[in-house]
């Protein structure tokens, strides 16, 4: 069980914001912090690992208090047993893959856990390579293996797959799943990717402006609510064309451009650059597979 009751004033690009969280995470659970950038997701990981100090509050992990402003307990990052996979992987550039893993060992730890990890993460061929010669996906596997060497109590993953293309991301999600099943670690993932969250995690906290906006299983948060067969997208008006009977409005939705037919009086309310909601009831939409 991880008890997290913290408050911290954060300075970001849009001014200051109070991060105020009270989470209880069950042991061995795989949870996600989800939300737009700048809501303090990474800060939560930094405070759990001791790299950042909350202004007030308490962090307890498995009956052990790591941080408490009341009793003035504050374990250094060195004393907290945390595995951390950084967004930029943070591999030591002057060490080979094997040296990176060996460096992560605790003082009197033997080599068996390292050889296990090399096997699980399929790093046999890469052991003597330097990080600069590895691809993004390979670096990620090394970073994940390195975070597990000390058998941490918590695994913290800060958008670990964000920089990778979708095929490799897919493969690495498999590794993450395998690691979680194998080591049964309490895992906290920071992610934007809904597919990834649904695939990997047990529980989601959706953050907004430093607070929990919604929480629940990934299905409850992302899937159930949109089961009505309704398509709903926000877009921007690019062009309005007057035809004889109707008007045609061109709307950009993300990277796609669509044309929507509307009545003249509806079109008269619109100007180019407006944000609009495009919605439609679709009882039997067509689904085409474009990529495995």
């Amino acid at each position: 069980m991880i008890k997290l009751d913290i408050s911290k004033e954060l300075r970001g690009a849009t001014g200051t914001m109070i991060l105020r969280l009270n989470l209880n995470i069950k042991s061995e659970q795989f949870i996600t912090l989800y939300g737009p950038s700048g809501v303090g997701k990474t800060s939560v990981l930094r405070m759990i690992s001791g790299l950042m100090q909350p202004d007030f509050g308490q962090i307890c992990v498995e009956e052990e208090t790591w941080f408490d402003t009341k009793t003035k307990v504050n374990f250094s990052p060195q004393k907290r047993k945390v595995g951390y996979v950084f967004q930029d992987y943070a591999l030591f550039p002057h060490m080979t893959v094997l040296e990176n893993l060996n460096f992560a060992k605790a003082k009197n730890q033997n080599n068996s856990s390292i050889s296990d990890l090399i096997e699980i993460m399929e790093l046999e061929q890469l052991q003597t390579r330097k990080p600069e010669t590895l691809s993004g996906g390979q670096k990620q596997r090394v970073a994940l293996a390195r975070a597990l060497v000390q058998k941490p109590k918590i695994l913290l993953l800060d958008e670990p797959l964000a920089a990778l293309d979708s095929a490799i991301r897919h493969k690495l999600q498999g590794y993450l799943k395998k690691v979680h099943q194998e080591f049964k670690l309490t895992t906290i993932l920071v992610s934007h990717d809904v597919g990834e969250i649904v695939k990997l995690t047990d529980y989601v906290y959706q953050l907004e402006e430093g607070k929990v906006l919604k929480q629940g299983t990934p299905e409850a948060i992302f899937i159930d609510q949109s089961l009505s067969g309704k398509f709903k997208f926000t877009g921007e008006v690019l062009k309005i064309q007057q035809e004889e009977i109707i008007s045609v409005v061109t709307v950009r939705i993300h990277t796609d451009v669509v044309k929507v037919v509307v009545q003249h009086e509806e079109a008269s309310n619109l100007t180019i650059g407006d944000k609009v909601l495009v919605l439609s009831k679709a009882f039997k939409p067509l689904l085409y597979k474009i990529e495995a």
Partner: protein
Amino acid sequence: MNWEPLLLTFKLALFTTVILILIGIPVAYWLSNTKSRLKPVFETLVSMPLVLPPTVLGFYFLMAFSPNNTFGNWLDEWLGIKLVFSFSGLVIASVIYSLPFMVHPVQSGLSGISRSITEASFVMGKSKWETLLKVQLPQIKPALLTGIVLSFAHTVGEFGVVLMIGGNIPGKTKVASIAIYDEVEALNYDAANFYSLVLFAITFCILLSVYLVNGNYFKGFWK
């Protein structure tokens, strides 16, 4: 030919560089990590020797270390150290005079290491000391080399500070740059030329080696 001034120059440069490695790295580490509001003040102090005329520095050293002054008197009476017109005085003055040449490259090297790399090491339970030795310093070898070589070369070329605090005592404080001045004043151009040529050749080789190494001409050997 009298090699003594040249040997003395390199002895001074060697002592100064070794002491600067021991002092400069912690200073650079502190400056690259501190959030203190006084940081600009300390940075300015470290950089002062870059712009201050060496004679100014030498003059204040002379004043401070002189046995006629409280501090110099205390050093003499309590510790038995005479820093004026002595080799140890030259070393101390040179260390301060060359401090920015060690601190600046190391500081910018340390600041250039991504924060997550040192944090990754902390999270693995490694102390700041172990992280500095095994993670940070090995990554900034070119900056360390630059700092060491520039400190050495700068000490070899120093004149004003040495003259002010060391004077011109053969075998004790008469380094090559002073010897050149001395010989020119006595119209011994051949001797002056000998010292000058040796200094020119050696400093050229030292600096060339830095540019070769840091320009990756010996790839795989150093980095």
